[in-house]
């Protein structure tokens, strides 16, 4: 372990030296109104504006699969709160899978800075990185993250994206540079926006529903998936759950600087929030066996008290497959897809009840599970693409998690 730690540090310094030589003029810079010291945390709020900032590094790292095997990955890490001068060292080899969760509120202005820290284990690569805020309505090209249609930061440089957050719902984000490669390598994350309806005054009448807000949109208040006007998307607890999948041959080829198998890509690890079962229910961050870093911070264990309404913010960012998530007896109600309330243009309710949801890459659904009819116990949420209930050769696990009702 000691040897490994030393190697990691020397890799980082080698990379920094290389970068210093090649990109002497690149600039790491965080843009965040009200942040006085460059760590992407607002120090002096600006009246009349709701500013939310984040600083992500984009680079490489490692993740362990549920069968113990190590995967080389590209992804993002959260540098929010890190002094800007420390960003390179903090971001290198720190990639998280999935990428850090982004939660936003309607009405916020979101300043997202991405710093490209380079791929420490692939010093031959000079790839840019970007963020594609997938599903952002009425997008601009410059902040869309598509490298063909905009500009993306080179190594040791930053780019600040600006998003005026006006539509609630479940989105997702990912890098769009060399999209097939960088997304297979893991540059994928959860992103959702909470609606303004949560902020209404206590006692506001919403159709047959009376909104509760005794503590200023705090934990005691009602929360909704969308501005539904009638409380029909109210929930008590929410869980973002992102489906993804890895082809270990692709990740190995990347680490070994071999030709990448695009055409022959076949995913063998199917995951929820970057883990296969039983890691999906492990409450702790999972260290990787290469650097010891904790890159897999999210679990997918769903828990609620009987009677609560559970919101599952489901998305799929697999680059190879549609997946169906089904459950052992959970009543699912789909109230939104693609970050839109499921209603017709004249307000007709298009919600539906089901036992499974099928999503392709880049698709999302908002599913409410009303637990009031459930007996306390453990239920399973799992893919009915049954071959993916496995962790590569290990014939157990894969895309599955537990829903615990107390």
């Amino acid at each position, binding site marked *: 372990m000691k040897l490994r730690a030393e190697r990691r540090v020397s890799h980082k310094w080698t990379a920094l030296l290389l970068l210093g030589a090649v990109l002497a003029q690149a600039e790491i810079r965080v843009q965040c109104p009200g942040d006085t010291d460059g760590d992407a945390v607002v120090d002096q709020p600006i009246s009349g504006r709701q500013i939310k900032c984040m600083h992500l590094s984009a680079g490489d790292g490692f993740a362990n699969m549920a069968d113990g095997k190590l995967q080389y990955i590209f992804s993002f890490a959260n540098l929010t709160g890190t002094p800007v001068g420390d960003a390179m060292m903090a971001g290198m080899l720190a990639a998280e899978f999935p990428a850090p969760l982004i939660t936003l509120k309607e009405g916020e202005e979101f300043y997202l800075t991405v710093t490209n820290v380079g791929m420490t284990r692939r010093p031959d690569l000079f790839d840019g990185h970007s963020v594609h805020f997938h599903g952002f309505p009425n997008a601009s090209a410059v902040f869309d993250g598509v490298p063909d*249609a905009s500009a993306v930061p080179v190594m040791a440089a930053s780019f600040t994206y600006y998003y005026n957050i006006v539509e609630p719902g479940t989105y997702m984000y990912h890098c769009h540079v060399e999209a097939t490669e960088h997304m297979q390598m893991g540059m994928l994350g959860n992103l959702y926006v909470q609606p303004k309806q949560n902020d209404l005054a206590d006692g506001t009448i919403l159709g047959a529903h009376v909104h509760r807000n005794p503590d200023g949109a705090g934990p005691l208040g009602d929360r909704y998936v969308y501005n539904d006007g009638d409380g029909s998307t109210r929930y008590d607890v929410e869980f973002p759950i992102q489906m993804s999948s890895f082809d270990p041959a692709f990740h190995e080829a990347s680490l070994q600087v071999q030709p990448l198998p695009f055409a022959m890509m076949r995913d063998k690890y199917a995951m929820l929030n970057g883990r296969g079962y039983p890691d999906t229910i492990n409450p702790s961050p999972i260290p990787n066996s290469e650097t010891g870093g904790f890159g897999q911070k999210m679990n997918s264990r769903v828990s609620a008290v009987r009677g609560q309404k559970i919101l599952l913010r489901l998305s799929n960012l697999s680059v190879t497959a549609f997946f169906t998530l089904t459950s052992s007896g959970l009543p699912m109600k789909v109230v939104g897809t693609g970050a839109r309330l499921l209603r017709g*243009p004249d307000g007709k309710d298009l919600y539906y009840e089901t036992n499974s949801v099928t999503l392709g890459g880049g698709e999302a659904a908002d599913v409410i599970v009303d637990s009031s009819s459930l007996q306390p116990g453990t239920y399973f949420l799992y893919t009915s693409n049954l071959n993916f209930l496995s962790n590569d050769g290990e014939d157990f696990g894969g895309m599955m998690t537990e829903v615990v009702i107390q």
Partner: protein
Amino acid sequence: MKPLAIVVFALFAVSMNAGVCEAAIQGRTGTEFDLVARAGHITTGDGDSILMWGYAVGNGLMQYPGPTLIVNEGDLITVRLKNELSEPVSIIFPGQDGVLAIGGNSGLLTREAPPDGATVVTYTFVASQPGTYMYHSGTRVDFQVEMGLTGALIVRPSSGANRAYSHPQTSFDREYLFVLSEIDPTIHELVELGRRSEVDMSRYFPVLWFLNGRTSPDTMADDGAPWLPHQPYGCLPRLHPGEIILTRVIGGGRDLHPFHPHGNHLRIIGENGRLLESAPGAGPDLSYSDFTLTVVPGSTYDALFTWTGEKLGWDIYGHGPGDPLQPNEYAPDHGKPLPVQLPEKQNLMFGNHYSGSPFLGAFGDLPPGTGGMNASGGLFFMWHSHTEKEIVNNDIFPGGMMTMLIVEPPAVRIP
């Protein structure tokens, strides 16, 4: 960026100057169509040349997909088929009622044209319901559709050419076709080598993905581009801010594809040639909005798309407060500056579809050799399969089932 990708895009950059893009859906209009099944070779973005079978118009070249047949609601449609291939072929019209087939030989699903180059099979039907449909071979369907015997059929409502269906809420300013398909070239190689009997469809493994019969970047080339004689249909949607485009999407192969339009959501108003309405005449009251469309094989989708850039929180034109509003500009953002500073050039890699400016219709200072594929200062948004494995041409990225939508400045004419 890989060296091959640079070559591919350099080739494309040359092609951009070749002619004028057409905003309408290209195809054959009328009530009578003479089609001939024949062979030819298509080219793909990895430089491959692949034997296909397809429907040609009269003495014309085999084309992939077949000619888009554009007809009017209520018309009696006659399609005559001859066959110059090496085995019987036919045509079926999913979604059309009462198709009558005359001539040729009887087959499993319909009457078939023998491979004699002379016998005519005639199919007739009344195009009774407006919408987007497909047609394809009804003979050895698993194999012959893979070989290319498929095409689109559009039935325009009698209420007006610029509507998807009869209802006024299905009106559009422009329309574009997206036939999604994929192939496994090993099948085509076996046929080319005369080893048809060795084709094993159970081993099907596609490595090439298409929009309107072309792989990216050819998808963005003009309709009728001369170097793509067998792939006449481009796939480059363009619109001005505030215009509504109708996207007609067809699952033309055998796999599902999540089709993701960057820029804005789609509102899906019709599926499989039927308006999503709760009762006749209600309009698309069951339509829904999504940022990715699940395209199922054999299904069709009619979706509306528009873009204004509203509520970005900054002026998409880069106006000062005193400048005049552009058509359909979102007035509350007028004159608001870009909220962030873009990094200096040495910090950035620039895309060839980027004008160098974040503003619509404007250009910025770009490093030499970049930005060459944006002539108008338009905003480019990628439309692609979000099964990102499918945006390659065999082992070469980028390519495949991918194109760009261009939001053009109001002053730029779209043909």
